[in-house]
């Protein structure tokens, strides 16, 4: 009779014992992190290019529609400004360049980056279009709708029609010039001149995506120019081809990027925890919105004529 049961004998295994630590399924090798970062970077750049070429022109179109509605009423009532001082951003005139398929483009006052995002800007310190003297309008050629894209394709004699509160004026293109070309003589007594400034596409097949230099188009108004109104002071803050790295925009960009990180982190967290469909439906718009905000703020930093 046995009181203690016989214990089962320890079985010995043959062969090699694997003493390595058990694999943790949640550890991600560092290369995968780097890979994710690189792929995210690539996506971000693609998104940025998409924004600059396509989405910014939506913004431009939207702004133009509301400006046009505002300007129409003001022109009809004769209340649009005809001389300095004009608040920057005020719609001034309607510009059409048939040769470039540009019609009914609203020109605003001021030529800083923020004004050039909504459309061509009138450079402060020159007379208004239609008045005696030299009037200068600056505009973008690639981003934000690129109203002045293709300026270098204009030929002498092409019409440019501008409508301001003082009337409709038809300018004829005289010449297109770039750096190194001679500047034309000042307009004669009683005549007006319009100068359009934008950036010139670079050389080569992808030149349109590499605007580096400025191009000027001079157009003359032989007769019918009205007396010049008061002219404002030159705006020294308007930087045309040099990018602006001002602190407020950088600060806003920093905040927007934090917002984007937050949105992406939230999305990732939700993806691993909750119902994927719900997270997808709710999270993607938030991420896209944060992305749009960040890219539009970074677009503030690019030069005003590009």
């Amino acid at each position, binding site marked *: 009779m046995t009181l203690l049961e016989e214990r089962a004998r320890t079985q010995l295994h043959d062969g090699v014992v694997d003493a390595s630590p058990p694999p943790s399924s949640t550890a991600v*090798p560092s*290369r*995968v992190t*780097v*890979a*994710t970062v*690189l*792929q*995210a*970077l*690539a*996506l971000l*750049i*693609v998104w940025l*290019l998409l924004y*600059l*070429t396509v989405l910014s022109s939506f913004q431009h179109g939207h702004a133009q529609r509301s400006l046009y509605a505002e300007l129409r009423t003001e022109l009809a009532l004769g209340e649009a400004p005809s001389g300095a*001082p004009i608040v920057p951003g005020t719609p001034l005139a309607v510009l059409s360049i048939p040769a470039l398929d540009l019609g009914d483009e609203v020109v605003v006052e001021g*030529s800083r980056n923020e004004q050039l995002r909504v459309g061509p800007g009138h*450079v402060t*310190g*020159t007379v208004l279009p239609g008045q005696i003297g*030299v009037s*200068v309008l*600056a505009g973008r050629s690639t981003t934000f709708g690129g109203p002045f894209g293709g300026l270098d394709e204009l030929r002498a004699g092409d019409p440019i029609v501008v409508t301001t509160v003082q009337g409709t004026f038809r300018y004829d293109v005289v010449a297109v*010039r*770039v*750096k*190194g*070309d*001679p*500047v*034309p003589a000042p307009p004669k007594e009683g005549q007006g001149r319009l*100068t359009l400034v934008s*950036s010139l596409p*670079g050389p080569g097949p*992808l030149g349109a*995506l*590499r*605007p*580096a*230099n*400025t191009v*000027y188009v001079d157009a003359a108004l032989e007769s019918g120019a009205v*007396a010049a*109104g008061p002219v404002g*002071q*030159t*705006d*020294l803050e*308007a*930087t*045309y*081809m*040099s*990018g602006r790295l001002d602190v407020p925009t950088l600060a806003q960009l920093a905040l927007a990027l934090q917002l984007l990180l937050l949105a992406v982190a939230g999305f990732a967290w939700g993806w691993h925890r909750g119902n994927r469909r719900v997270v997808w439906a709710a999270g993607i718009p938030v991420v896209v919105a944060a992305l749009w905000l960040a890219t539009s703020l970074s677009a503030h930093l*690019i*030069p005003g*004529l*590009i």
Partner: protein
Amino acid sequence: MRTRRWSRVLLATAVVTGTLGVVQLAGSAGADDWAFSGSVVAKRAHIGEDGSASKDDATQTRVDVKVSAVENLRGRQSVRVAWSGAHPTGGVVLDPTSAEAKDQEYPVVVLQCRGVDTTGAVPRGQSRLGPETCWTQSAPERYFASSSQTPPWRVDAYASAADRAPSVGAPDPLPEACSRLSKPITARWLPLLAIDGETYYGGPDPGVGCASTAPEASDTTDVGLPSNTVYGATAKDGTGQAEFAVWTRSENATLGCSASVRCALVVVPIAGLSCDAWGNNLRAPQLQANGTPLTSTQKSNADATCRRTGAYAPGETRDSTKSSDQAVRGAYWWSASNWRNRVTVPLSFAPTGDACSATGAGDAVEIGGSVVLNELTASWRPAFCADDSLFAFSHVQQADFFALDQVDSGTLPAAFASTARGTEFSRPVVPAPVTVGGFAIAFAIDDASKNRQETLKLNARLVAKLVTQSYPVTTWLRSGRDDLADNPLNMSVDPEFRALNPGLKSDTDLSSAGALQLLSERADLTAALTAWIDADPEARAWLDGSADPWGMRVNDQYKAKRLSSIDGFLLDTFEAPDWYKTANKCYGNSPSPYLNLVANPQANLSAITINLQYASSAVLTACNFLTEDPIGSLPLRKEGRQAIGNRFVLGLVTLSSAQRYNLRTADLQTASTVPDGATFTDASGRTFVHGDTAALKAAAAGLKADPETKVWSFDYSTLQTDDGKQAYPGALPVYLAAPTTGLTDANAQDLAKLLCYAVDPERGAKQGTANGTLPAGYLALTDSNGLGAQRAYTLNAVSAIRNQTKSVPALDAKTLSYDSVCSFRTAATPTPTTGAPSDPPATAKVPDAPTAAPAPVAPLAAPDVPVKKAAPVDVATAVSEEVTLTSGQHSRLGSIGAPLLLVLALAAGLAGSVLRLSPEQLDTFSRRVRSGARSITRGRRP
């Protein structure tokens, strides 16, 4: 008998011709002083109940008006207006620009108005001149309320029916704030039309919102510029005069006068309202536009009030208990019967430098330095940028030494200065004389009978007393110190001052008479003043410690010091005692040496000229804090404007600014034969010189050049000689310091053009008021002015700068002719000979020439930027082409552009995908690739 008769005839002829000659001379003496003369017949005629114009009490006088300057006017410039034949003024107040001056009887009102005075078509861009475009500053001048139904303006014979209504000109709808104020029975609003089209209605209390007032308007006089509207008093003989400060849009943007916006001076001699109580002069027979008709009693009362001719006798001063008759008050200058008696004087303003940015002048050459040349550059800058053969420049006003440092480092291409630089330049810089200006001690002082003092005599010792803070100003300060214990409290009670200038007001409680307003920053202007004082033996002895004949001693902080070595005259350290700190809370809040607050140097010259023009004391001891916030910031404030009749302010300004703002300047002592130590009671034995052109010319002879630095300066020892006695000690030559190496070719040619302009007798060396000529207060660099040596050196400098010879011309170098160096179309220009011993040693160690700092981002306002094509820096050629080329701008970001970003994105994506594969996957992948490759190659083999 015959000879007697002939001799009598001859005598008679001689007498007659002599008288005629004298009369002619007297007549022509003042003829050319005035730029404008005009006249008006000021009429006053009443219309009775039956419609007849009464002949008995109708008056008319012919008033002649003269104005001293109407062309090429600049902002804040003071013009004189004189009139004769006007009705004498009653109820006279001391200050004709104050708000209470409008209640004088029969004043002559002078206003600045915008617009063209015509009944026909107004030229495009201009306004129509009228009472609504004339500037008055305080609200009571534009709103008139009465508790009577019939104030005089309602029965003005020439007013229209609409203007005779009980309430005229009120804004419609009336602002809500007005409903809370008491409603008058009758009210007349006089709206002000601003240049941008906005209407400022004025009103009873704009402060609480009952209608608006222009931004430059204020009811107090220490905000902005004081009003320039003058209610001038006419003396009993019918003559009067006033000084009027004209404003451009920089001083008053609401009025907005400028070279392109026409404005006028309107002189309205008040003859009184012409009355028409029964409305017989109205076209349509209505008496008032709305409201109940006036009763006949009211109409006769109105007629009686309106016909009054004045409560004050002519010339009587204002008495606060007696009110002046409304019908003849200056306040109603706008009423139709006064307004039609006006004389309109069109004003023409000189274009200012604002025009430069509009004409697309592009990059302006910046020249720093001297405040002495402010008026010169203000005149030349618009002329330069409008002239194609010249260039655009801007004058950056800075301390001279600082500007010279910037030239040395290459930040600025050139600078104006007067004294030589303390340390040597690191590269050769030629000091080319430009003109001779001068410093002046301007004063606004009233004499004992409260009239403005026109002349003042100051010797160097008196100025030294002011500058060295030696006047204790208060009794507690004097008793608290040993060194000032025997000193008079301020200059007005100083026996020396009173001996030289008898008859002036003296007051022991006048802090502003203990200080001279100076610039706070070190400037050559102040250096010239201290050089004059240091060179005067009388002043120097006093500064070294000996007392003046009455026992006054110098402040210990300044004893035995050379004034030229002192930087900022604020050496005193004595603080007020505790009881004063309690009494003056603002001082107690931030105690500092008291005399430094009295001295209170100003940051820039325009602050000093404004203080002198409006007699404003800069003594910083006033404490006006808001009673609602007594523990708040408690700042010390300036004493501010002094009442007319009690003015005593002095300041150091330039001769040219004194001319522009019509400031009175003191005569400075040059030589004295009075023995030391003896008291004196008058100015005998001393020579005083006023700062006019003749005295500057005499000073030109006393200018000597230093052989090492080649800078001309005034040799004060010549003042003691007989010839030099008539020279003005304030003469201050100004030179342009321009490097002769390291300048860009464009800058070199431009600076040379500036110097050539300055010595050209047809342009920069011609005195005048128009833009581009030499303004008053400067002496041109011509041989006839005794400045031939300077002119010759400037021409040599022109050549050195144009050719960038890397050396400074010698003083005795051969004179070059104007035509040879100043022709900007020829290829070759002669180089100046450089004498061997005068090459400064700096040329041996010229470092790599620093290029001038790039100009700030070129504004695209002028894409027609005149960038001169850089000719190769060749000693022989100095060509500047006439054709300007487009400069354009370049963006590096743009040149990188999208393609690179796309490539980057592709690369990053590829790298990412590759990295994502684990080593095993990579292994299998590579094995598959290899096997695939092998199979392909195997497949090839037959």
